[in-house]
């Protein structure tokens, strides 16, 4: 489905119809925001009570799902059915979270044998994935934006931590789709922040973006020249943030109280800790209360508790500077992002590392959403086009070779889109299958890297060991999402491969959840869905016709016949009222076009990259 993977579902070419309704969304661990560009100025869209921040909290009630402040209010009373900081679970497998199971207040569904995506049990036998929980948050933001902008959105840019791996990015994109958003692009949060600052100031130079949010820490070094933002390096820790400050404080207080770690109490202690910490940004001393237990907390004690956590950001900062090939003095400015950077000790530590007082004149809670809105505006074709982002992949991508050793195919900090291919060969005589294990990470041994996908290249003609030439190609698109292809060259036989994401949801699952969510919605939704499907069908028909004209030589007769039939079917169904029938016909056309799409993809890859060297691979 290469042809249509590039064309994301739901994308519309009719931009005039809904120009100016592109939004940027900061899907944060603690809070989420939506922003748009109005009259050339990025603005955060508040709710009807003028609150910009939507707490990233979802409560699953008996009759309905509530999101935001309302859900937050229910968290202490219903700790198991109220999910907060869900971002920490994005793209995580059951195995990944097994270690922290006892530390979360949530009821996690028992691990399944295939070690799939983690699920929360939210009462009444319901199990929800982090993707579904995130989609609830995104849906509220989408509705907020649609109400204020007066109609369906043109598309959205959703931000992710630069350090998010492929599975986490894919999960975020899936959540966007599930919430009915057309995801124009995933944007790294630090890049978004720099975009917000860069445009305001029109500055040139090298910038560090220090982003300490609720649950993640990111550091990025960016170069800004002639309107081109180039990400020189990124680093961070996807499990470090302001939440850890709260946990440190709450841990101490709970120990003093001799309290058992029950979900309700833990939640209350964490909330009290956060409130006290926020007060200490301005005050020297505050009172912290959990139920009847009260105690004083001074800034000095707070700083002693959180200093070790803050110092864990130093290593990634120094590594990012080194990767970018500059010393601390080579940075022209430091941008602060994330609520936790309001903490005076964090600011002092940043100044110590970079030798510069950090910039902070844009609200660190809003700066990412504002930058995302700018990028959405650019991508929607309505904004300025004098700015361009050149992003890099945060972690190396490779495959497992002999003895569990990782062979890197695309090294970290490569500018995207990036592509590379490498040739491998069979090690046994008459070997007809080839196992490919795709991993992400910096370590040499496979068990220290993250497993992204496994697939088998089948149908290699039997030949002597070392004769087959298996070419494995990695392509990372502008969202940082990976596609892997493999084919055997000597025989000229194109073997079919299936990439099964280990942690993300399959397309079918996302479609199913999408449909389920729509089934519970009202008629408006149904007609919107029908309209969306019609637009999508029209887009696919137009794109397919153009591709068939342009690359007629790549079309064999059986494929052409199958595609013609599928096109006729889709045209007929588009006239009808059944959005699912249209959808099925789109999928059928997609399927019929698959050989053609693959031929096109392979040819463009052939042009883009060439094999590097032949390596032995044990399978």
């Amino acid at each position, binding site marked *: 489905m290469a*042809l*249509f993977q*590039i*064309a994301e579902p739901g*994308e519309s*070419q009719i*931009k005039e119809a809904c120009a100016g309704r592109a939004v940027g969304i900061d899907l944060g661990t603690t809070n989420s925001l939506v922003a748009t560009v109005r009259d050339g100025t990025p603005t955060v869209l508040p709710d009807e009570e003028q609150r910009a921040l939507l707490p990233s909290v979802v409560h699953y009630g008996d009759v309905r799902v509530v999101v935001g402040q309302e859900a937050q209010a229910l968290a202490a009373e219903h700790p198991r059915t109220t999910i907060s900081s869900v971002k920490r679970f994005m793209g995580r497998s059951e195995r990944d979270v097994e270690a922290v199971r006892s530390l979360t207040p949530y009821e996690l569904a028992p691990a399944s044998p295939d070690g799939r995506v983690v699920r929360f049990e939210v009462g009444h036998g319901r199990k929800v994935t982090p993707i579904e929980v995130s989609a609830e948050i995104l849906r509220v933001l989408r509705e907020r934006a649609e109400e204020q902008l007066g109609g369906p959105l043109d598309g959205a840019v959703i931000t992710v931590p630069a350090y998010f791996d492929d599975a986490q990015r894919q999960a975020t994109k899936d959540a966007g789709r599930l919430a009915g958003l057309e995801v*124009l*692009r995933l944007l790294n949060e630090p890049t978004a922040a720099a975009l917000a600052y860069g445009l305001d100031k029109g500055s040139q130079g090298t910038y560090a973006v220090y982003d300490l949010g609720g649950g993640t820490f990111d550091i990025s070094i960016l170069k800004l*020249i*002639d309107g*081109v933002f*180039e990400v020189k390096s990124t680093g961070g820790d996807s499990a470090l943030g302001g939440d850890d400050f709260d946990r440190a404080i709450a841990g101490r207080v709970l120990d003093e109280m001799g309290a058992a770690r029950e979900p309700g109490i833990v939640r209350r202690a964490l909330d009290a800790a956060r409130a006290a910490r926020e007060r200490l940004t301005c005050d020297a001393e505050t009172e912290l209360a959990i139920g009847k237990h009260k105690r004083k907390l001074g800034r000095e004690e707070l700083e002693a508790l959180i200093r070790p956590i803050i110092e864990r950001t130093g290593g990634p900062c120094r590594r990012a500077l*080194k990767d970018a090939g500059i010393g601390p003095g080579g940075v022209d400015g430091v941008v602060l992002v994330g609520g936790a950077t309001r903490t005076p000790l964090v600011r002092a530590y940043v100044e110590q590392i970079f030798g510069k007082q950090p910039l902070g004149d844009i609200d660190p809670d809003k700066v990412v959403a504002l930058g995302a809105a700018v990028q959405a505006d*650019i*991508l*929607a*074709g309505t904004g300025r*086009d004098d700015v*361009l*982002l*050149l992003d890099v992949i945060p972690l*190396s991508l490779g495959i497992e070779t002999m003895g569990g050793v990782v062979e*890197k195919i695309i*090294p970290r900090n*490569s*500018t*995207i*889109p*990036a*592509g*590379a*291919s490498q*040739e491998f060969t069979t090690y046994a005589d008459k070997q007809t299958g080839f196992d490919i294990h795709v991993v992400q990470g*910096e370590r*040499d041994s496979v068990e220290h890297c993250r497993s992204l996908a496994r697939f088998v290249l089948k149908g290699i003609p039997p030949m002597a060991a070392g004769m087959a*030439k298996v070419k494995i190609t990695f*392509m990372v*698109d*502008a969202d940082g999402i990976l596609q892997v292809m493999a084919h055997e060259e000597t025989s000229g036989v194109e073997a079919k491969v299936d990439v099964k994401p280990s942690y993300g949801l399959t397309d079918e699952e996302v479609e199913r959840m999408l449909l389920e969510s729509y089934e519970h919605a009202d008629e408006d939704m149904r007609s919107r869905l029908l309209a969306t499907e019609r637009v999508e069908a029209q887009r696919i028909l*137009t*794109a397919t016709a*153009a*591709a068939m004209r*342009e690359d007629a030589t790549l079309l064999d007769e059986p494929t052409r016949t199958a595609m013609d039939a599928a096109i006729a079917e889709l045209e007929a169904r588009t006239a009808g009222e059944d959005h699912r029938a249209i959808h099925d016909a789109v999928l059928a056309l997609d399927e019929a076009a698959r050989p053609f799409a693959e031929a*096109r*993809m392979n040819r*463009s*890859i*052939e*042009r*883009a*990259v*060439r*094999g*590097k*060297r*032949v390596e032995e691979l044990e399978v």
Partner: protein
Amino acid sequence: MGSPSSSKFAILGVPETFDLDPEELERRYRERSREVHPDRFARAPVADRVKALSEATALNDAFKVLKSPVRRAEHLLELRGQPLGDKEPVPQSFLMKILELREALEDAQAAKDEAEVARLETAMRARFDAALRRVGQLFASGGTSEAIKKELIDLRYFQRFLDEVTGEEAA
């Protein structure tokens, strides 16, 4: 293996020479990125997006190769039809010398003798830079591919040594 190499200099629109101005290279890269980056085609027809993706990928690859003097030199040899193979013959004495130095490095690293590690790194950096200068002179004076290859093979070993110092994988 692979398709016949096309010029990465042409992709960037810079002169096909070893002696590239790094600033000019970066400037051209930014200009070309503006033209072909997929963000420019976010809402364009599928065919245009496929094209942008493959062009931008090729551009990023070309920039990465030309930015590195060693890889730039290797690419120039490829364009001459004299690519550097993976298993080029290396004199035994040279291998022995490198082996000795790597052992010294491992010992110093194991003993956490940072001064010794730094000394070994500085010495190797000097060898590396000298070899690179010779490559530049050879290209400028019309030296043979064989002579350039010899230097590049040495550089490979020097590079691997330096990667060992920083604990980085060779890119």
